[in-house]
């Protein structure tokens, strides 16, 4: 399977030294090593031929089917629940209510504030009031209909600003303000006093659904020895285990969590497997039988986490030449009913604080103030979704940069050239970016590849009938690698066997992003074997070391380093043994492509497997365990100053759109996206992330929105929750720039979440450039664009 991709399209990989801005060079692709090569994904054939078993394909023999009765009110007290009729239905094995939860009746990725089964009160329409397990899914459905619940409706809260009011109904006992965070840098008054132009704008983004292809599924299997096995597609097996054990009231080592192939997650399968895992486990605990809960699409929309909606107010000040002098931001971040991934994990973990840190954008601004409020409401809850608080603020800072450029009559790329981060820039949190800052490289490369300067002159009507106008837009982006918590670390085990084959154990999961290809690549490279010699073990909390969650664009970098450390321990044995066998000093030995050879006399060599066999025979260590944590994060809770994340990925996107001036219809017609990823371990995989991310960012810009009315979701399935189809996505030209990350494996840093962030504002800016109207409340669907055009036309008249 380690054939290289036969997709022969050009992959542009530019390293800093090779960055010739007069000419886009095609970097020499293939070196002798495994890293840096576009090796075909290890799961590609299985997936495209349909041979990979996803959860829904698993045998269901002997399983009970779990179903969840959800609240019929967004906010209400539960007066009574009568389960008698449901229990009497033949084929029903269990009907559970709150008092049936054996341990803690609460789960959550950060704070366990979400009831496994609600007892006294419901806080959104996705809340569970009862669980059913039955012999068939149909009986389970029937049983749900037989449960009688009486509610006492409470006044609901649907707006974070309303939630903050003193007389607002309290959703949780501690009140509706889950977190208030602030960032203070410089002197705001002085800053704004220096400004020639001050702009104030408000941007608003809605709840988004991940719309992953694979519906959630979870299987809980009670084992004879008292262990509970929980299986399902999931991004964070260790977080699931940590919740299931508390909910069952058993020690951690009595719960085993196994990740099975996952059909997309985008952050959503960080939360939902906790939810389903706990509920399936409680049903399995009571029935002592394996239980599976498979959500239907409508249930996913109802019950699982979303991207946080935000209302973002910005006041920005700049000098005539575009130099930014002050930035003041307020974020009303809507958490919804439960804490999920919102609240702060010190010093800089959680989506809310991340949004605050990122809000001023990748720009040097001497005076910055941000106030960020995270509020409970009676809506679905916000969790992790590709970008974790950052996509929202990118929509704000990249649009206001364009609005500012327009007010100052400066080309949008020039205002970014002037203010964008460079090496040794200080961020809003006072972090000095000492290394791996490729923002300007991406900006220049993108400008050239997109031919911005020419196109900037050529906007205007594209048809004779004068109905359609072309416009172009830019979006810059930055994104952390790592999650900003003190416990952010990864462990890896590497076992080499006497035949030279390797097992690699990590807790990082595969959700389509390619980790199961990139991680073995790193392992093979470090050991000096081939890609096909390494088999990666599916994450299983009984088997693999704690690795944290597969989030935060951390896997390649943090786990890559852990793998290198583990591999080096084994390699040391191998080289020691080879040194004995070849009688060559160890420091002259090289391990590469299954051979150990003398660097000074390459004729002197051994096969890797010979040496491994000798190690085994002699009782020499062939297992390695690596553990890697990034430089510790810091962030002062009072001032928001510190180094919250140790390295960032940078990017520039440019989009061309055509807007129909009379209907508001938008077509994205061309797209270039350049990324500084430090080092592309697998360039094709990076491209895949870029293309998918742009498509996702396009959906955020143009069509996606969980439509809510009175706390009820109006678009429960994919008929009305629209995501882009392949016809909506233009050809995307990805460009990879490599500005080495000193802390990364082979210089790499994260790419997973990043690509959707600048895409959304690049498209929004292009729309504004084309039609003169700006949509500040997403999505910019044809109707919003239409009214924005009308408003702009009125303003001109």
């Amino acid at each position, binding site marked *: 399977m380690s054939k290289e991709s036969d997709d022969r399209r050009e992959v542009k990989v530019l390293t800093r030294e090779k960055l010739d801005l007069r000419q886009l060079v095609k970097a020499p692709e293939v070196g002798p090593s495994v890293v840096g090569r576009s090796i075909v994904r290890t799961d590609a054939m299985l997936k495209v031929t349909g041979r990979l078993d996803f959860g829904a394909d698993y045998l269901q023999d002997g399983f009970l089917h779990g179903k969840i009765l959800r609240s019929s009110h967004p906010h209400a007290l539960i007066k009574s629940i009568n389960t008698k009729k449901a229990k009497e239905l033949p084929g029903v094995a269990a009907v559970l209510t709150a008092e049936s939860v054996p341990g803690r009746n609460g789960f959550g990725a950060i704070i366990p504030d979400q009831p496994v089964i609600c007892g006294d009160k419901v806080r959104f329409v996705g809340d569970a009031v009862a669980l059913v397990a039955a012999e068939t899914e149909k009986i389970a459905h029937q049983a749900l209909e037989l449960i009688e619940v009486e509610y006492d409706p409470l006044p609901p809260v649907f707006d974070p600003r309303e939630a903050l009011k003193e007389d607002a109904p309290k959703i949780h006992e501690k009140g509706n303000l889950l977190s208030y965070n602030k960032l203070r840098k410089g002197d705001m008054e002085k800053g704004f006093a220096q400004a020639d132009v001050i702009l104030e704008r408000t941007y608003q983004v809605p709840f988004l659904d991940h719309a992953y292809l694979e519906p959630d599924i979870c299987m809980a299997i009670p084992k004879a020895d008292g262990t509970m096995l929980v299986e399902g597609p999931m991004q964070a097996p260790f977080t699931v285990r940590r919740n299931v054990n508390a909910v069952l009231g058993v020690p951690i080592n009595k719960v085993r969590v196994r990740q099975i192939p996952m059909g997309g997650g985008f952050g959503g399968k960080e939360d939902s497997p906790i939810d389903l895992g706990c509920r399936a486990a409680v049903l399995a605990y009571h029935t002592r039988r394996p239980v599976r809960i498979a959500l239907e699409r409508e249930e996913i929309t109802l019950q699982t986490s979303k991207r946080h909606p935000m209302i973002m107010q910005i006041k920005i000040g700049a000098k005539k030449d575009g130099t930014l002098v002050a930035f003041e931001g307020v974020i009303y971040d809507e958490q919804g009913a439960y804490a999920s991934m919102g609240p702060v994990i010190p010093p800089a973990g959680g989506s809310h604080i991340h949004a605050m840190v990122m809000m001023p954008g990748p720009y040097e601004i001497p005076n910055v103030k941000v106030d960020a409020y995270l509020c409970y409401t009676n809506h679905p809850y916000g969790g992790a979704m590709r970008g974790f608080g950052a996509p929202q603020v990118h929509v704000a800072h990249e649009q206001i940069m364009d609005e500012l450029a327009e007010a100052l009559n400066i080309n949008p790329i020039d205002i970014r050239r002037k203010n964008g981060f460079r090496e040794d820039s200080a961020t809003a949190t006072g972090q000095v970016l000492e290394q791996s800052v490729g923002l300007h490289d991406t900006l220049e490369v993108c400008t050239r590849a997109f031919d911005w300067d020419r196109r900037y002159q050529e906007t205007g009507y594209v048809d004779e009938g004068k109905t359609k106008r072309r416009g172009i837009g830019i979006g810059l982006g930055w994104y952390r690698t790592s999650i900003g918590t003190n416990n952010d670390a990864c462990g890896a085990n590497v076992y080499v066997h006497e035949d030279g084959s390797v097992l690699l154990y990590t807790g990082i999961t595969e959700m389509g992003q390619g980790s199961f290809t990139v991680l073995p690549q790193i392992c093979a490279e470090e050991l000096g074997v081939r890609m096909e010699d390494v088999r990666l073990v599916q994450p299983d909390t009984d088997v693999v070391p704690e690795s944290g969650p597969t989030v935060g664009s951390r896997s390649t970098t943090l786990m890559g380093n852990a793998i290198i450390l583990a591999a080096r321990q084994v390699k040391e044995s191998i080289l020691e043994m080879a040194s004995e066998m070849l009688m060559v000093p160890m420091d002259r030995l090289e391990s590469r492509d299954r051979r150990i050879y003398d660097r000074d006399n390459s004729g002197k060599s051994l096969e890797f497997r010979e040496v491994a066999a000798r190690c085994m025979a002699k009782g020499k260590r062939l297992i390695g365990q690596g553990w890697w944590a990034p430089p510790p994060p810091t962030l002062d809770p009072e001032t928001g100053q510190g180094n919250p994340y140790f390295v960032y990925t940078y990017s520039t996107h440019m989009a061309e759109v055509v807007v129909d001036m009379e*209907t508001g*219809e938008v077509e994205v017609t061309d797209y270039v996206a350049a990324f500084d990823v430090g080092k592309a371990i697998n360039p094709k995989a990076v491209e895949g992330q870029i293309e998918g991310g742009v498509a996702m960012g396009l959906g955020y810009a143009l069509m996606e929105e969980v*439509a809510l009315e009175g706390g009820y979701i109006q678009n429960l399935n994919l008929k*009305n929750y629209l995501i882009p189809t392949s*016809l*909506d996505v233009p050809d995307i030209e990805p460009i990879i720039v490599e500005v080495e990350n000193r802390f990364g494996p082979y210089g790499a840093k994260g790419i997973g979440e990043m690509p959707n962030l600048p895409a959304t504002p690049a498209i929004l800016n292009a729309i504004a450039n084309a039609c003169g109207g700006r949509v500040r409340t997403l999505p910019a669907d*044809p*109707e919003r664009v*239409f009214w924005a055009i009308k408003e702009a036309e009125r303003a001109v008249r």
Partner: protein
Amino acid sequence: MKDFELYQPKSIEEACRYLARHRGRARVLAGGTDLLVELKGGRVKLAAVVSLKSIKGLNKLTYTRKEGLRIGAMVPWTQLLDSKPVARNYPLLRKAAEKMGSIQIRNVGTLAGNISHASPAANGPIPLLLYEAECMVEGPKGRRVIPVEKVFGGVQKNTLRSAEVLTEIRVPTPPPGANGTYYKFALRRAMDLAVVGVGALVRAKNGVFDDVRVALGSVGPKPFRAKRAEKVLSGKMIGDQLIREASEAAASECAPITDVRASKEYRIELVKELTFRAIKESLS
């Protein structure tokens, strides 16, 4: 989904018998791409489903200049898309087929099902209204012909009697020299329902509107012919000003609703612009 009886009759008469037996609580199954969605959603509860799959001859698609196009009830959209006579003589029907769902949906979904489902947002009604098609219907009391305009009874309501089956759709050859177009305005480029559907079929003679047909969808409980707009144009000298007037008239015939997709105000604006464009394009 609730349990129901599934019948697979071999003839139309047999199908009608089953429908009659469960009067009002049975439905015909063609491709199922509308019916199954309704059944799964629980909105429709049925005692019986009568599949047309085993009835021979319902998948016939024939064309003669004299008789026009005859589309059997089980002809899926893909067959329409692959048909040369359709491409040659009924470009608007072809366009409706192109804009229909996805390959999978087109492979099983039928035009007859699309018409019977009577969604105001559907693709099929617009070309059929413009071509003035007729529905052949068979029931316990015999056969009858319903002009397509009369087959829509309201939002997802057709005017068939409960034991009747739509057996064939007949589409006369369009008036020679007529040109037309069909716009399906949706929020994304595929796999979406129309926010507004507009079609026009126009024949001009000596600078005068000779035969003008305008059809609208998604802007009322049924898809319909915009008669007022047609009247504004008919027999008049071609001119932009007049076409604008006609578009305003078309908008005045609409009674759209506000839903998750769009507001009624916006739909009205779309009708005005797209009607204008459709007529202009039909003239060029």
